[in-house]
């Protein structure tokens, strides 16, 4: 009989041991380390943090989880006892929520002065911009020709001849969906609701997530819609990951539909490694790291002197003040706007 109780006892003991052991091993060697928390879309070249470690003697532990929304909610829930020191991946559509929760400690990197001024980003004592990109309408080039030209502007979508072509994502469940809604609010001002009413009458498809619209309804995935809400970098990704290889991307963007997304990093208030965390923020802004961003995350570096990979030379130049809405305004209106949108388009 005893045998049966010893097995659970031993297992439990082993579990406790194992859990205890999984704690950062580096701490034992009295070496300084810093933990970087990111969303799951964070990607870097192999060994890039080794450069940081060899320069500073600080090792980097990486933790990743879910998406931006999950990242912010997690940091708020663990604000008294954070799971890491630096958080990366908060964009301007959720910046207000993160700042309101008062989870950061202020830090302004000396390198921040070298960020491209024309970026026109939201300045904050707490958060440092690391990269940026745009959510834009993409269209399938082959669906249009000289007699039926692609829409040049978001206004053209009101034209009934572009009926039933557009697929968008629900702004209540998708990040590009939300960004595009914000673009229309900025572009049309008070008339944004009537814009969506017209779209609804003309036939607009709505999916819950980006994948369903890009790979389900958009022509790229075998669907029938020739205009989709995606990213300004999507045509570049189409080029790099095309199979068989192509010379020019099969898609292009409609410029005035773009909404700028800036991704920020910040130091969590209850960190025990503030100096290390500051050094890491500086590293995220260093030329070496900044130049690593485009091909890994399909975002643009914020650093002025960072040079772009060849594939990104076709990244469109989009006016920095296009469709600008401040994070504060987004934060105080987001839920209200998405509710009106839901009433207009879904019900």
């Amino acid at each position, binding site marked *: *009989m005893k045998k*049966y*109780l010893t097995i*659970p006892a031993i*297992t*439990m003991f082993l579990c406790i041991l194992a*859990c205890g052991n*999984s704690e950062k091993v580096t701490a034992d060697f009295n070496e300084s380390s810093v933990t970087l*928390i990111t969303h*799951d879309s*964070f*990607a*870097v070249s*192999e060994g890039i943090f080794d450069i940081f470690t060899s320069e500073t003697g600080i090792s980097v*532990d*990486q*933790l*990743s*989880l*879910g*998406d931006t*929304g*999950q990242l*912010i*909610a*997690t940091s*708020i*829930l*663990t604000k*008294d*006892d954070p*799971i890491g020191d630096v958080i990366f991946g908060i964009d301007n559509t959720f910046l207000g*929520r993160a700042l309101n929760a008062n989870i950061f400690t202020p830090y302004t990197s000396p390198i921040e002065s070298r960020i491209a001024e024309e970026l026109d980003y939201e300045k904050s004592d707490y958060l440092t911009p690391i990269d940026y990109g745009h959510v834009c309408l993409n269209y399938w080039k082959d669906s249009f020709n000289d007699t039926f030209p692609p829409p040049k502007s978001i206004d053209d979508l009101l034209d009934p001849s572009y009926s039933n072509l557009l697929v968008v994502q629900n702004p*209540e*469940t998708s990040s590009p969906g939300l960004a595009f809604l914000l673009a229309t609010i900025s572009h049309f001002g008070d008339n944004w609701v009537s814009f969506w009413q017209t779209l609804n009458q003309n036939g607009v498809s*709505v*999916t*819950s*997530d980006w*994948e*369903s619209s*890009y*790979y*389900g309804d958009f022509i790229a*995935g*075998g*669907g029938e819609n020739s205009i989709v809400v*995606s990213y300004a970098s*999507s045509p570049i*990704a*189409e080029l790099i*990951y*095309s*199979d*068989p290889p192509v010379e020019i991307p099969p*898609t292009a963007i409609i410029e005035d539909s773009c909404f700028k997304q800036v991704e920020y990093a910040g130091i969590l208030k209850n960190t025990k490694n503030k100096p290390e965390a500051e050094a890491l923020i500086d590293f995220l802004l260093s030329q070496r790291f900044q130049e690593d961003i485009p091909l*890994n995350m*399909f975002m643009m570096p914020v650093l002025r002197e960072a040079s772009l990979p060849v594939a990104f030379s076709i990244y469109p130049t989009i006016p920095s003040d296009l469709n600008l809405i401040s994070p504060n305004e987004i934060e105080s209106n987001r839920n209200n706007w*998405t509710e009106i949108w839901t009433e207009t388009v*879904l019900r």
Partner: protein
Amino acid sequence: MDRNGASLKSFIRFKEWGIALLPISFFTLLFFLPVFYILRETFNYSFSPLREVFDNSRFWSIAWFTLWQALLSTLFSILFAFPTIYLFTKYDFRGNRFLRAVVTIPFVLPTVVVGSAFTAVFARFNLDTGTVNLRHTVWAILFAHIFLNASIAIRIISTFWEGLNDHPESQSRILGASRISTFFQITVPRLRPALFSAAATIFLFCVTSFGVILILGGPKNSTIETEIWRQAIWRGDISTASVFAFIQLVFVIFLASTLIRAEKKTSLSEDLSVKTKRKPRKGIIVFHFTYLFCLFGLPIFTLLERSLNPGNSGLFTFFTGLTKRTNVIPITPISSLWNSLYFALLASFIALFIGILTSIVIVHGSKKLSSFLNVSASIPLGVSAVTIGFGIFLAFSGPLANLRTSQWMIPMLHALLGVPFVVRSVVPSMRRIPAMFYENSKLLGVNPLKSWFNIDLKLSYRSLVVGAGFSFAISLGEFGATSFLPRNPDTLTAPLVIYRLLNTPGEELRGQAMALSVILAGITALSIFLVELVRKSD
């Protein structure tokens, strides 16, 4: 109450707590504690948030939709599974183990992949426009739920049925009853424990169905599960989200315990038998294979088709590409597969271990402890990933804080979702073991604990295997809860990698996502097949 005689009662009581200790700590740590903290956060000792939600008419329509889609999905999954259950129970044919393995495949496929496969199938048969339009309807949800869950019914019910002897049926036939009325009046009532057990599992699974509802249901259909996620993640309204989580919990406890009680009430101990199975006629085999192809084949076929490269660089380049690291993902897709396999092995081992202890207490323990564990072992399946994920962050503080980022969290959470499958397939089989067996063993001087382990484990071995197979598969395919756990990017699992591959445009990445899904499905089928071989030779 307990089968081993009153004189031993107190002795057993004491030991039963010994066995129950580990399962209880397991559920407390991973389930009750996180849920408790989430609820405490919400209500803050006041019930006004609850009233607010109840006053909202939208809430009632969401709750009603959640209920009926889950009930209909459960009913249809079992109904559509029946021909195949019959095939596996009554016939012995070549390829039967292969087929058992194949029907488990849908289970591991990430829902984002299943969703897109169904969308493609609908498009191919022109079911997404015109008169029959399935796009973003409840029908699309039901189809996918049947596809995903019929295998639960097939495996649990056919394994139970195989262990039933034929005597009552033969007598009924001799007395002149028709085959059909024998089936409905004799067989179905005898199958009830397994029917209720399978129904409970499928129901819980459909309540927390997430990807299917979101992708196939479209933006207009929401369930409590998708609403919790939307409120918590998108609206940042943790309070409303946890009111929904609370309602989901009450709802799930109520319905699951009803089904579980029905399972208990209908169980009878009876003589076991190893049935001699017939060889089927060719027509029967053709019929069943066609039927299974219609049920499972089309989406899987679409997936296979998409994993192959039609371009001139070679048909299998998406597969060979999996060994190379693409920029957008921190590890090679193949190594994510190793991570998944490693976690799945650990998870199914833990699930099996906890599941066996739990089942023994459920079957032999005192009434209160038994009912408590019976319900606690199953409800984690019906509770939102958001609740458990965020609950863990709130609950694990102080000395437990390191657990939040521990690499053990992934297999432990997967095991939490695997235990219900072990328990729900093992308990009906254990319950029908004749009391005589334990009494004989007692007469021979074997202590009751030892006889439980010996008799129960040997006689419900087949169900254990089924449960272990499902825990393995559920861990391989798990996405929701895993995505909440902070982890080193080196330990990304295959479903997370598939999801990320599908998040950047480009044929190559998408092809690789499909290829990785095919391998994931293949591995599941293969491991179930191997387990079936072991089962046969035992």
